[in-house]
C-alpha cells in the first residue's frame, strides 16, 4: 500500500503550482472572469507547452504518456487556482473519449492536436430534459447516406465559448432513455446548422446552449461503434469525476487555510475569534471533510481502471463525498469570515461558488447515492 508520489510527480506538482502562483493570482482570475473574452488563450497555450493538455495522452499520439495520478495532481492545483480555461474538457474528457473509443486515424488526427492546444473541445452531453442521466437523449442523429444528420439541443455546455470542436452524444436508435442507441460524434462548432448562445456561469467561467439544426456529418465523425457509445460516455464521466474530486480538494484547501488564517487574526470581544471553541470545532470539521475528500480522490483515481461496476461505485462514492464536503466547507468558510465572506471582493465566495458548481457536474449527491446503492 503506497500513497507516496514519485519524484517526477512532485516535480509536476511544483511546476504547476508555480505556474498558478505566477499567472493565476486571485485578482488576475477575477479580472479575466469579468473580461469580455472570459479566458486567456495564451494561458491555454502555456498548458500545451507544459504538456498539461497531453498529460494522459500516449506519447505515440503527442502526449506525455502519464497516468490518472498525474491528471489528479494537475486537477488539484487547478482547483487551488480556480482555473477557467478548458483543461478538464480537453485533457480529461475529449482525450479520454478518443483514447477509449477513437479509431487509429481519429487518435492520430485529434489527440496530438488536443495536446498541442490546437483543437479545443467542449463536451455536449447534457440536455434540458435529461438531468444527470447520460442516456436521456432527444438529440437525434439520423442516418443520411454514409453520414448522419443531427438535430437537438444541448444544455449548459461548459467551456463551449472557448471551443472550436464539440464532442456530442446523440441517439441513433432506441427510446429516449435506452442504454443502447447512444452514439458519440465529433462536430465542428462552426459547422452549418450549429448555433450557440454563450453566457457566464456562476463560478465565473462560460458555457453555451448549443442547438443542432440539420447538421450533416460524415461517417468519420462517429467515435467508436454506432449505438454503443454509452459505456464510453460513462467511463469518461467517471474519469471526469475523479479529476473533479481532486480539483475540489484544491479549492477546499484554500478555503480551510484562509479560514484558519482569518480566525487567528480577526479580533472581536478582545480576542481572535479562532479562540472560540465553537469555531475551533467547526474548523476541525472542515479539516476532516477535506482529508476525507483527499482520500476519496486518491481512491477513485486508483480505481478508474477496475471493471465497470467497481469503477462506477468508486466514482459515485467520490462524487457524494466531495458534494457533501464541498457544501459544508464552502458554507463554513463563508460563515466564519462573517460579512467579508459574502463579498465578491474576497476569494472565499468564489471558491464557495466553484465547489457548489462541482457538486452539480456529472450528477449531484442524490444522483450518485442512487447509483451507488443500485450497484449493490
Amino acid at each position, binding site marked *: 500500500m503506497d500513497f507516496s508520489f514519485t519524484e517526477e510527480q512532485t516535480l509536476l506538482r511544483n511546476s504547476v503550482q508555480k505556474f498558478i502562483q505566477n499567472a493565476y493570482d486571485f485578482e488576475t482570475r477575477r479580472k479575466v472572469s469579468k473580461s469580455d473574452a472570459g479566458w486567456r488563450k495564451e494561458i491555454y497555450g502555456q498548458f500545451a507547452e507544459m504538456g498539461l493538455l497531453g498529460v494522459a495522452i500516449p506519447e505515440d499520439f503527442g502526449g506525455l504518456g502519464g497516468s490518472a495520478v498525474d491528471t489528479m495532481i494537475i486537477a488539484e492545483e487547478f482547483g487551488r487556482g480556480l482555473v477557467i480555461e478548458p483543461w478538464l474538457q480537453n485533457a480529461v474528457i475529449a482525450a479520454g473519449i478518443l483514447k477509449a473509443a477513437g479509431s487509429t486515424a481519429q487518435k492520430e488526427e485529434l489527440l496530438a492536436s488536443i495536446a498541442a492546444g490546437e483543437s479545443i473541445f467542449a463536451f455536449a452531453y*447534457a440536455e*434540458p*430534459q435529461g*438531468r*444527470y*442521466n447520460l442516456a*436521456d437523449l432527444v438529440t437525434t442523429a439520423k442516418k443520411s447516406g454514409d453520414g448522419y444528420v443531427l438535430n437537438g439541443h444541448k*444544455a*449548459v455546455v461548459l467551456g463551449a465559448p472557448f471551443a472550436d470542436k464539440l464532442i456530442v452524444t446523440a441517439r441513433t436508435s432506441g427510446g*429516449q*432513455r435506452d442504454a443502447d442507441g447512444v452514439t458519440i460524434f465529433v462536430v465542428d462548432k462552426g459547422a452549418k446548422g450549429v448555433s450557440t*448562445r454563450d*453566457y*457566464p*456561469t*456562476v*463560478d*465565473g467561467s462560460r*458555457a453555451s*446552449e448549443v442547438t443542432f439544426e440539420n447538421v450533416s456529418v460524415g461517417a468519420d465523425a462517429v467515435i467508436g461503434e454506432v449505438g454503443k457509445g454509452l459505456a464510453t460516455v460513462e467511463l469518461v464521466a467517471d474519469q471526469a469525476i475523479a479529476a473533479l474530486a481532486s480539483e475540489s480538494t484544491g479549492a477546499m484547501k484554500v478555503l480551510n487555510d484562509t479560514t484558519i488564517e482569518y480566525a487567528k487574526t480577526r*479580533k*472581536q*470581544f478582545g480576542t481572535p475569534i479562532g479562540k*472560540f471553541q*465553537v*469555531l475551533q470545532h467547526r474548523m476541525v470539521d472542515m479539516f476532516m471533510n477535506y482529508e476525507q475528500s483527499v482520500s476519496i480522490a486518491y481512491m477513485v483515481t486508483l480505481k478508474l481502471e477496475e471493471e465497470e461496476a467497481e469503477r462506477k461505485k468508486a466514482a459515485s462514492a467520490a462524487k457524494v463525498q466531495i458534494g457533501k464536503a464541498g*457544501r459544508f466547507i464552502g*458554507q463554513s468558510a*463563508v*460563515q466564519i469570515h*462573517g*460579512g467579508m*465572506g*459574502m*463579498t*465578491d*471582493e474576497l476569494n472565499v*465566495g*468564489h471558491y*464557495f*461558488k466553484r465547489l*457548489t*458548481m462541482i457538486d*452539480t457536474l456529472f450528477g*449531484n449527491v*442524490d444522483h450518485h*447515492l*442512487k447509483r451507488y446503492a443500485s450497484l449493490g
Partner: protein
Amino acid sequence: MDINFTPQDEAFRAEVRAFIEENQPHHLKGVRRGEYRNKEDFLAWQRTLYKKGWLVPSWPAPYNQLKWTPTQKYIWGEECARAETPMILPFGVSMVGPVIYTFGTEEQKAKHIPGILSGDVWWCQGYSEPGAGSDLASLKTTAVRDGDDYIVNGQKTWTTLAQFADWIFVLARTDKNAKAQEGISFLLVDMKTPGITVKPIITMDGGHEVNEVWFDNVRVPVANRIHEENKGWTCAKFLLSHERAGIAGVARSKRAISRLKDMLAMEIIDGDKLIDDPDFEKKIAELEIDLTALEYTELRTLASEQAGKGPGLESSILKIKGTEIQQRITELVMEGVGYYALPYSDPLAHNEFAPGPAYAEGAVQNYANMRKTSIYGGSNEIQRNIIAKMVLGL
C-alpha cells in the same frame, strides 16, 4: 389549549386578504428584492399601506389608529407572505422610527416621523464597522463636540441600501474614556451632509445591496442626537429587541416551499416528476415538518404576548431556526433545478438571455445570497451564545 383561530380572526383574515389582492403591486409578486428596478419598486407597497393606515399596526397613537391584537398582526403577516407582497423596508418603520418615538424630543418626532411613514425619507442603518461586527460595542466612529455640532469621523459597513438613502442613523463614540457601551451616542445624519461618501460592496451573487459609508469631518447638529449623550446603547438595545415579529419568516418560508413544490412538479427526472421522486419527497417532508414546528413555536410566542406575558423564552430560537430553514429551502431549489442552476444571471440585467426554465433562474445566486441570513442580525453563533447565557443560565 386551543390552536384554532376564532371566527372574528377568520373574518379579519378575509378582509385583509381581499385588500391585499386588490392593492398589492402585482408586478413585484415573487420578484427578488435584488432584482427591483428602481426606488419606487421598494416603496410602492409602503405607500399603499400608509394611505390605508395599515403600515404600522404596532406603533402607538397618534401615529397608528389600529387596535390589532397580536393574533391579528400575525394573520396580517401571514396574508402578506402568502400573497408575496414586497417586504416593507425595516430601517425607518421598524428601527429608527420606534427609537425616535420612544426616546426623541417632540421636535425630533415632528421632523422625522412623517417622512419615515410616508416613505418619502429613506433611512439606512450605520452600525457595523470593519472592526465592529459581532462586537458592535467596540465601534470606533467618533463624534466630537464642536459648539452646537458633533464632528463625525469613521467608517460604517454592510449598510443596506445606503445608495438610495436620504438619512442614516449612526452609533458613534462620544466618550473615548468610558466603558465601550457607555460612551456611544445615537445620531441622525442627513446623507447630503458634506463629507459622506457611499461606496458599493458587491456581494458574491453579483448584487449591490450593501455599502461602506465613510464619514470625513461630517458636521452633525447636536439637535440630531436621540436621547442623551453616551446613552445611545440604550437606543441600540431597544431597537434590537423591539418589533421582532416575523423574524422567523414562517409565512414567507411556507410560500417559498409552495413555490419549490410547483417547480418540482415541472422538473422531470427519468420521465417522472421530481416532486414524486421518493428521495426528494422525504427531503421536502423533513423541511415542512421543521417549519411546522417553528410555526407552532411562533404561535406559542404569540399567545404569550396576547396574554400580556411578553414573548417568552422560546422566542429566542426564532431567528436561528427561521434562517436555517430559509437557507435549506434555497439548497433544495438548487438541487431541484439540475444543470440550469449553473448559468449566472446578472440581477440588474433584465433583458439578458436566460437559458433554461424561468424557475431555475438565479437558483445558485439566491443560495449564495442567503448565506447572509445566518451572519446578519446577530450571527447564529451569537444568538446561540445569548440563549446559552440568558435562557439556559450557562
